[in-house]
């Protein structure tokens, strides 16, 4: 009389199938949540990168304004074409230099003061900030491009901010 074991209850196979379905459901939900967690961390990097990029744009604007007082336009240290770095802390009022003189444009962070700079006596952050100035109308208009580069979980991420600056002082 093997009737019971043949017709009622679950076979091991059925149990296995049911269990694996459960495991698949849970693990896929878990990975989805883990992914959203990752996205949050990525959002944090984007927020930091956006403000640091804006900082570089603002600094170039400030130098543009300072040069305009002297009736100048895109004079040293605003170098056209080359990748340059900006350090708002150097010599209190900041400085602009090619990446080669600016810790290869990698930003460092002083956890004590909270300052991001290119001062290589502090540990490097994940962020690299490059500025490129391209004059598109001689003595009138230039495009400032700030490129933020960083790594997140092994993937290269970037954020690019551009601004057109104009020469409001000298009439060509």
């Amino acid at each position, binding site marked *: 009389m093997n*009737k019971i074991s043949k017709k009622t*209850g679950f076979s091991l196979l059925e*149990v296995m199938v049911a269990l694996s379905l459960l495991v698949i459901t849970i693990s896929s939900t878990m990975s989805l*949540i883990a992914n959203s967690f990752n996205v949050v961390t990525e959002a944090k990097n984007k927020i930091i990168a956006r403000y640091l990029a804006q900082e570089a744009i603002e600094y170039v*604007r400030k130098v543009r304004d*300072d040069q305009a007082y002297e009736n100048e336009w895109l004079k040293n240290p605003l170098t056209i074409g080359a990748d340059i770095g900006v350090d708002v802390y150097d010599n209190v*009022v900041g400085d602009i230099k090619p990446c080669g003189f600016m810790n290869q444009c990698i930003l460092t962070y002083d956890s004590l003061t*909270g300052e991001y700079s290119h001062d290589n006596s502090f540990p490097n952050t994940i962020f690299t900030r490059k500025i490129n100035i391209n004059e598109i109308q001689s003595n009138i208009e230039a495009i400032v491009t700030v490129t933020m580069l960083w790594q997140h979980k092994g993937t290269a991420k970037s954020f690019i901010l551009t601004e057109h600056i104009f020469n409001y002082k000298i009439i060509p």
Partner: protein
Amino acid sequence: MKKGFTLAEMIVALGVFSVAITIALAGFVNILDMQKRADAIRTAYDSLDFVMEIMSREIRTGTEYCISSFQGPCSPSFFHFTPASNSGENTAAYQINNNRIEIAVVPKIQSIQASNWIAFTPPGVKINNLKFKVTGNSLNNSIQPMVTIIIQAEATVKQGANVQLNLQTTVTQREIDS
């Protein structure tokens, strides 16, 4: 006579069931926990992003950084200026107090009282450092005023587990300071 389950079958079935349900529950509890964490972090980031955005925009469009004699000198964690709103008739200021950023807006000819300060960041976000670095702000000195804003913040997500957000940005005054 031989209908139904034996005790042994019942025990095995219950055992399998309890193993499965334990795994499932642990998974769901974990999911709930992570979701809460992610949510808390996102809220903290959003509020800090908002505060930084407002401060940088208001300062950028404003004038007279640390000029008003009614408010006294600025310090690294106290900054006042004339916002563009209300025809430049107000003085606005930011400070850090009790690990929160505070804002005050008063008429230009009035010094800020303790009661004028309003909390600008939510209580769940702990601001460890707020710093303003001001250059070129004296009037008509041929140097465009510039302010670097630094925020060091942390949000407590779970007991012992904190996330940090350290922001820095710089703004220059839009109005030309000839």
